[in-house]
């Protein structure tokens, strides 16, 4: 059979009349009527994404203001421009995708998994290009501190982002959590780039970049937990003991 013939069969079958009763439609309309107040639509994506980038910048600057701008001071001009330009661009992409995950029926330019991969590899590329000190002093002990510092700043950034988009509706909470985590992770990397004076290539490549996948994974886990809990509580309501 040709595609056109299958098309024809499907189209004809789809024309079958629907036996939805007027009473059913009336019941739906009646259930909506009592709470039919005017609502304000969400702002355009660029406004929300801009707000999210500002939140990330604020968290990064606040973190660095508390700990010191020693990393920023140690970088040369090229390093400053490339590192922070990459972070802002990646944060913009992640913020736009976060907004899209919170608005049903939005166009998705990149999947959450691809965003995580793209963000991590883009950072690896920039760091690999810029930092050429291949010594590895106290690789694990200092690295863990940086990873935790970045992650601890990713949490408030992601939470504030979630707060900013609280009027949205995530049709897939795992995807939304993952993207929120990636965005928060970029804020965490921002803190590290502003503060961490260790510009050894291995340290930056491994421990600074690892903040993004760690935060993304944590965000996805939170999204999964929320979905699981929502399902469990609904199940308990449906089957009370």
């Amino acid at each position, binding site marked *: 059979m040709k595609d056109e013939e299958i098309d024809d069969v*499907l189209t004809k079958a789809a024309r079958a009349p629907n036996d939805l009763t007027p009473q059913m439609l009336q019941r739906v309309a009646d259930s909506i009527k009592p709470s039919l107040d005017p609502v304000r639509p969400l702002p355009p994506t660029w406004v929300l994404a801009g707000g999210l980038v500002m939140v990330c910048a604020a968290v990064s600057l606040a973190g660095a203001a508390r700990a010191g701008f020693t990393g920023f001071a140690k970088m040369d001009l090229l390093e400053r421009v490339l590192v922070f330009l990459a972070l802002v661009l990646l944060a913009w992409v992640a913020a736009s995708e976060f907004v899209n995950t919170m608005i049903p029926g939005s166009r998705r330019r990149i999947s959450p998994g691809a965003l995580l991969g793209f963000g991590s590899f883009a950072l690896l590329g920039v760091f690999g290009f810029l930092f050429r000190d291949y010594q590895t002093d106290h690789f694990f002990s200092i690295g863990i501190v940086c990873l935790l510092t970045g992650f601890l700043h990713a949490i408030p950034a992601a939470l504030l982002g979630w707060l900013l988009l609280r009027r949205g509706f995530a049709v897939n909470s795992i995807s939304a959590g993952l993207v929120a985590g990636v965005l928060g992770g970029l804020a965490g990397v921002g803190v590290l780039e502003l503060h961490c004076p260790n510009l050894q290539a291995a340290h930056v490549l491994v421990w600074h970049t690892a903040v993004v996948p760690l935060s993304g994974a944590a965000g996805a886990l939170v999204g999964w937990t929320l979905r699981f809990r929502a399902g469990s509580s609904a199940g308990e309501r449906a089957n009370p003991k």
Partner: protein
Amino acid sequence: MDPDSNLEALMARYQQGDFGAVTDLIERISPQLHRFFLAQSQSRTDADDLLQETWLRIHKVRHTYRPGEPALPWFYAIARHVRIDHYRKSLRTAVGERQLEAMSQEPASFANESDHADGLNALLAPLSESQREVIEMLKVAGMSLEEVARATSSSVGSVKQKVHRAYEKLRETMSAAGFRRGQRGGLS
């Protein structure tokens, strides 16, 4: 009048609290959504419940629709969420989450009364859940590939791939069943 832009205008009026727009939307969208649920539910009662639940959800999040954006993908994205949520909850209470994964990969294994009652459902029975979903959206709702991609939170390429695979499977099934052009209402 372009039916899509009409839907969008109705959505804008719905957001302003116009009850006439709500009833128009319910009359226009409900049959499509009901068919969407019926093709993938175990019973008509389930489909009725899912439709009601979807409208309550739509009402709750109506502010997330943005004027100027296509309305159908927005409706279907919410309907799809409600459907997935419903099956996840029912599977969790009955047989656990593992079956959900299997269900999304394997052809729908539960024959139901609507399968026998409806030609399209019978035609789509051999397809997996995700393939049925995109075919339903394309053929019943008349959505474009771009709109289906929006509704399913995926890329146009992924939708095309699912449609291609669905057509391959339909071709095999229809050929095996000796389906001829011009017949309607089910496999012969």
